[in-house]
C-alpha cells in the first residue's frame, strides 16, 4: 500500500465518510463481561484497594485490604468455576473482547491455579505473628515505610508509629490481574500489556522487605532493569512479528504462518516472504517469555531476586509467575506458531536441557535456602519445558498438571522458610537449619515433604507431575529429554537430600534459629500446600482428568 493511500486513510477519517467505506460507522466493541469477570473482579478489587489506601484510617487498612483481597480472589475463583462448569473450558470455549482474550480450557485452568496460589500467597502476605511485636503493634514482613532510608530516623519513626505498607495488597491484586490476563492473552498487544501489568507491581513488591532492606532493594533493581530489558526484547519481537503478519492477533498470525490466509495484499506478500522477520521475531518473543519462566540462560535474575525479595513475595512470584508465563508460552507455541514447530522445537530442546542440568548442578553448592529453592525452580522450569516441547495434547495437559502441583509445593516451601527465624529475621543460611528436625520435628517433617515433592519421590505431587511431563515428552518422541531429565533429577535429589540430612541428622547448634509459631493464616497456607502435595501424589486422577479436559486451546 502506498504512502498516499495511508494519507487518504487519515483524511477519509477526518472528512465525513461516504457510507460503506471502512470505518464509516464506528460500531462499539462488544465486551463479554461475564467471560471477563475473573479479571475484572480482581482489577476492581485492586482499584478499590487503592481507594482504601487513600480513605480508610491507618488502623483499619490492614483488615480492609485483606478482606478486599480475599473476597475478590474468592469471587474471581468462583467466577472461574462458574465459567468452567458452564462449558467455557470445553465446548463453548471462545475468544472475547474483540479477540484480545481467550476463554478456554488452559486459560481457565491456569487462572484457577493462579487464583488459588494467590489466595494462599495473600495469606502469607498477611501473616503478622512471625516478627516480634514492636512498640505494641504486630508487624508483617513488609517495611513500615518503604520510602524511608534503611536505618534512618524516619524509618524508626515509622516503625514506632506502627506504619505498615498495606499497599502490598492492591499491588498484589494488580499483579494477579496481569497474571490472569497473561495466559489468556490472544493477541501480542494484550500479551505485552499483561506482562507489564504483573511485572511492575512485582518489581515494587520485591523492594519492600522489612528486614534486610538493602538486599530487598537490590533485588528490586536487578529484577526491574533486567525485566525491562527483556520486555524490550519481547516488544521488538512483537514488532517484527507484526511486521511479518501485518496483525497482532494470534489467529491472523497463525493463518499467515500456516499460509492459509485469505486476501493477501502486496505489502503482506512482501513481508510474508521474509522469514527472517518471523524467525527473529519468534526468537525474541520466546526470549521474553523464557525470561519470566527463568530458563537458562535467561535465569540469572532468579536467585538474586528470590533471595532478596520478601519471602512471601518470593513464594508468590515463584508460583504464580511461572504458571502464567508457561501458560502464555503454551498458547504462543500451540496457537500462533504450530506451523513453525520444526523451527522452535530443536531450540527449545537445547534450552530445556541446559535449564534442567544447569539448575540442578548449580543448586548443589548453594548455601542459602532461598537461593537453593530458586535454582530448584529453574530446574523445574526445565522439566516443564520438556512437557511443552512434546507438542501434543497430552503435553499441554501434563504441563497444566505440573504447574498446579508445583505452585502449591513452592508456596508451601517458602511459607515454611518464613517460620525459621533468628535475631536477624529469617535464618535462610543452610548452616542455621542444622538439627531443625530435633528442635521442631513437625516443621522439619513438613519441609521434608515439600523437598521430597521437589525431588519427585513417588506418592508426592512432584512425582505425578514429573511422570506426566516425561511421559508426554517420551510419547512426543523426546526420549533424550526424558533421559536428561532423569539424570538431572538424580543430581537435584542430591541437594534436596542434603537439606534433609542437615535438618534431621546433624546436631542442632546452640545459637540455632527458633521456629516461630505462625497465625492461622500461614498455617492454612502450609496446610493447603501439604494437602495438595499429598492428594496430587496419591490420587491425582481427578486433576489429571481436569487438565486433560482443559487441554485444548481455542483459536
Amino acid at each position, binding site marked *: 500500500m502506498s504512502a498516499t493511500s495511508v494519507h487518504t486513510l487519515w483524511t477519509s477519517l477526518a472528512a465525513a465518510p461516504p457510507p460503506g467505506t471502512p470505518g464509516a460507522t464506528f460500531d462499539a466493541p462488544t465486551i463479554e463481561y461475564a467471560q471477563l469477570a475473573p479479571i475484572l473482579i480482581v482489577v476492581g478489587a485492586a482499584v478499590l484497594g487503592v481507594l482504601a489506601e487513600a480513605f480508610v484510617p491507618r488502623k483499619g487498612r490492614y483488615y480492609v485490604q485483606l478482606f478486599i483481597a480475599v473476597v475478590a480472589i474468592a469471587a474471581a475463583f468462583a467466577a472461574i468455576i462458574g465459567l468452567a462448569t458452564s462449558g467455557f473450558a470445553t465446548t463453548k470455549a471462545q475468544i472475547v473482547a474483540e479477540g484480545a482474550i481467550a476463554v478456554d480450557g488452559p486459560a481457565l485452568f491456569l487462572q484457577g491455579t493462579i487464583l488459588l496460589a494467590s489466595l494462599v500467597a495473600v495469606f502469607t502476605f498477611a501473616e503478622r505473628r512471625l516478627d516480634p511485636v514492636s512498640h505494641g503493634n504486630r508487624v508483617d514482613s513488609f517495611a513500615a515505610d518503604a520510602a524511608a532510608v534503611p536505618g534512618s530516623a524516619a524509618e524508626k519513626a515509622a516503625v514506632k508509629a506502627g506504619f505498615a505498607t498495606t499497599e502490598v495488597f492492591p499491588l498484589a491484586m494488580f499483579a494477579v490481574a496481569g497474571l490472569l490476563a497473561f495466559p489468556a492473552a490472544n493477541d501480542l498487544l494484550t500479551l505485552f500489556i499483561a506482562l507489564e501489568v504483573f511485572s511492575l507491581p512485582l518489581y515494587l513488591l520485591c523492594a519492600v522487605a522489612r528486614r534486610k532492606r538493602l538486599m530487598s532493594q537490590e533485588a528490586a533493581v536487578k529484577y526491574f532493569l533486567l525485566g525491562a530489558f527483556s520486555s524490550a526484547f519481547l516488544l521488538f519481537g512483537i514488532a517484527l512479528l507484526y511486521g511479518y503478519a501485518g496483525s497482532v492477533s494470534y489467529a491472523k498470525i497463525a493463518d499467515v504462518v500456516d499460509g492459509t490466509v485469505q486476501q493477501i495484499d502486496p505489502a503482506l506478500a512482501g513481508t510474508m516472504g521474509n522469514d*527472517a522477520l518471523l*524467525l527473529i521475531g519468534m526468537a525474541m518473543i520466546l526470549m521474553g517469555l523464557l*525470561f519470566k519462566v527463568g530458563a537458562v*540462560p535467561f535465569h540469572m535474575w532468579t536467585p*538474586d531476586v528470590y533471595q532478596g525479595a520478601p519471602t512471601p513475595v518470593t513464594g508468590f512470584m515463584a508460583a504464580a509467575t511461572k504458571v502464567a508465563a508457561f501458560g502464555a508460552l503454551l498458547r504462543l507455541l500451540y496457537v500462533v506458531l504450530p506451523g513453525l514447530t520444526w523451527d522452535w522445537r*530443536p*531450540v527449545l530442546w537445547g534450552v530445556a536441557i541446559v535449564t534442567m542440568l544447569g539448575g540442578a548442578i548449580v543448586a548443589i553448592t548453594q548455601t542459602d535456602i532461598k537461593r537453593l529453592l530458586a535454582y530448584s525452580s529453574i530446574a523445574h522450569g526445565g522439566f516443564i519445558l520438556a512437557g511443552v516441547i512434546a507438542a501434543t495434547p497430552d503435553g499441554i495437559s501434563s504441563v497444566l498438571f505440573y504447574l498446579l502441583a508445583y505452585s502449591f509445593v513452592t508456596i508451601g516451601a517458602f511459607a515454611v522458610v518464613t517460620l525459621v527465624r533468628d535475631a536477624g529475621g529469617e535464618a535462610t543460611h543452610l548452616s542455621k537449619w542444622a538439627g531443625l528436625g530435633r528442635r521442631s520435628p513437625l516443621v522439619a517433617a513438613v519441609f521434608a515433604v515439600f523437598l521430597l515433592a521437589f525431588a519427585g519421590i513417588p506418592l508426592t505431587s512432584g512425582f505425578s507431575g514429573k511422570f506426566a511431563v516425561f511421559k508426554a515428552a517420551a510419547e512426543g518422541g523426546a526420549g533424550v529429554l526424558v533421559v536428561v531429565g532423569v539424570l538431572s533429577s538424580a543430581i537435584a535429589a542430591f541437594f534436596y537430600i542434603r537439606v534433609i540430612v542437615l535438618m534431621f541428622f546433624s546436631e542442632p547448634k546452640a545459637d540455632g534459629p527458633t521456629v516461630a509459631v505462625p497465625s492461622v493464616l500461614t498455617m492454612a497456607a502450609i496446610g493447603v500446600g501439604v494437602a495438595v502435595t499429598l492428594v496430587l501424589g496419591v490420587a491425582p486422577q481427578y486433576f489429571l482428568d481436569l487438565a486433560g479436559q482443559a487441554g485444548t486451546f481455542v483459536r
Partner: protein
Amino acid sequence: MENLIALLVAAPLLGAAVLLCGGRRLDRAGHWLGTLLAAASFGIGAVLFFDMVGKDAGDRALHQKLFSWVPVADFQADIAFQLDQLSMTFVLLITGVGTLIHVYSIGYMEHDERRRRFFGYLNLFLAAMLLLVVADNYLLLYFGWEGVGLASYLLIGFWQHKPSAATAAKKAFLVNRVGDIGLSIAIMLMFTTFGTFAFGPVLGAAEGASEGKLTAIGLMLLLAACGKSAQVPLQSWLGDAMEGPTPVSALIHAATMVTAGVYLIVRSGAIFNAAPDAQLVVTVVGAVTLLFGAIVGCAKDDIKKALAGSTMSQIGYMILAAGLGPIGYAFAIMHLVTHGFFKAGLFLGAGSVMHGMNDEVDMRKYGGLRKYMPVTFVTFGLGYLAIIGFPGLSGFFSKDKIIEAAFAAGGAQGWILGAATLLGAGLTAFYMTRVMLMTFFGEERWRNKATASPAEPDVEPAAQTHGSHSEPHPHESPKSMTIPMIVLAFGSVFAGGFFAIGDRFANWLAPVTRFEHPHPPISVPVITGATIVVLLLGVAAAYLQYGRKPVPVVAPRGSLLTRAARRDLLQDDFNHVVLVRGGEHLTRSLVYLDHSVVDGVVNGTAASVGGLSGRLRKLQNGYARSYAVSMFGGTAILIAATLLMRAV
C-alpha cells in the same frame, strides 16, 4: 526291619541334641547318656547285622525312604537309606569302636568341665558318620560328609582356649571344604549325566555314560576323598588335627572319619571300573600318600603326630587298593576295618601314656614306661605288631593282600605299585618300632629332665598349656580306659585272620563291590616272604638307631630329609607362602581396590559434578550487567539457532 535304619542314626542324634541343648543340669549324667545311646546304636546295628546274615547274599540290601528332601523338577533328592553289606561293615565298625571310645572318654575327660559337650559332639559325629554310610544317594551322603566335618571341627577345636587348637580346627574344615568342591561338582556332573544322583540308578547306568564324563566324576570323587582322608595333596590338616583330645584322634582321625574317602571310592566302584584313567590316578595318589605319610611318621617326635603320619600312610594303602578295582575293593575295606582296630588301639594307648605323663606328647621325654603302665604296654604292643604286619595278626593279612593286589595290577604299573607298597611296609615297621622303643624301652628320660621343651615346633603349644615342669609320675590308667584298649587289642590280633580265611570278608562284600582274585605276576608266597623280609629290615634299622644307642632328649638336627619330614615335608610352608600370604596380599589389595577404584569412580563423579557446580556458580557474580550480557548472548544464540534450523 528296615525301619531300624533311621533309628540307627536317630539314637546318637538324639543324644547330641539332648546333651548340647540340655544345659548344665546334665553335666553329671551327660557322659553316661551319650555312651548309652552310642551303645544303643551299636545294638541296633548288631540286630540288623544278624538279620542281614540270615538272608541270602543276593537280597541283603535294605532300603528305607523317610521323605522327599529337595524336589525341584528333575532334581529329586530324598532322605532315604540303603543298608547293604558295605554299609553294614561300616555301621558295625563305627558304632563298635565309637562305643568303646565313648567308654574310654569317660575316664579320659574326667577332669574337663565341658565333658558333657564333648560327649554331645561325639554323638553328633556318630550320627553324621552313620548317615554318611547308610545314605542311598550322593546328596545325602554329602550331608553326612559335611556333618562329620563339622563334628571333627568342633572336636579338634574342643580346647578352644588354645589358639593352636582353634587354628587346627579351622584348617581341617577349610581343607575338607576344598575336597567338598570335588564332591559337589561330582554330584552336579552325575545330575547332568544321569539326571539323578541316587546310588542305584547312577551306578546301574554308569557304563552307559561317556568315559570322559565318568573320568571327570571319578577324579572329582577322588578330590573329595583326598580332602576327607588326608591324602596328598590335601593331607596337611591331619597332623594339626592331633590338637584334639586323644579319643577324638582315635575315633575320627584314625578309625572312622578319615576312612570315609575309601568308602566313597569303593561305593562308587562302578564308576571307577568304567574309568581306568581315574583309577590310575587313584592308585598313584594312594602310593604317594602311603610313602609320604610313612616318611613323616619316621621323623615326628610327637607320638600322636607320628601315629597321624602312620594313619595317612595306611589310608594310602586303602586308597591304592580301592584304585585297583574289583581285585582291591574288598581288601581296601578289610584293611580299613583292621586298621580301625589297631590304630584306634594305638591312639588310645598313646592317650593313656599321655594321661600318665601329664599330657606330655614328646616321645623324647618318654622311655622305659613298660613297667609303669603294663596294660597300656601290652595292648599298644599288640597294636604295634598288628600294624607292622607281623605274621598272624590282623595287619599282616590285610596289608599283605593289598600288596598282592598291587602287584597284580599288571604291567609296569603293577611293579611300581607293588614296590611302593613293599617299601611302605618297611617304613611302617621302622617308624612303629621307633615309637615303641622310644616310649616303652630305653632309659627313663622323663626323670628330672624337666628342662625347657625341645625345639620341636609341633609340641610347643602342648608344652605351654600342659607341659608341667614338675617330674611326672607315670601310672596306669583307670579301667574305663584300659578295657576299651584291651577289646581293641583283641580285634587287632584276630580280626584279620577271621576275615581272611577263605576270603570270607571278600565274599561278604562281593555282592556290593564285586570281587575278583588278584593274580600277581609272581607267586603269592614270594610276595609274602618279601614282605616279611622288608618288615624285619625296618625293625632292625629302628632297633639299631633307637634301641642300641640312647635317645637324645633334644632332637638332633638330623639330615635334610629328616628336617623336611618334621615339617611335613615342607608342605605347610608351601601352603603358608603361597596360599596364606598370597591370599592376604590378594584380599588386602582388593580392599584397597574396592575403596579407591570401585567406590572412587562414584565419589569421583559426585566430586566432579560438585566442582562443575562450583565453577558455574562463579558466573552468578551479582552484577546485573553481566546477567544482561548472558541474556543478550542467549537471545543472540536463540536467534542464530532458529535461523540455522531453517537454513539446514
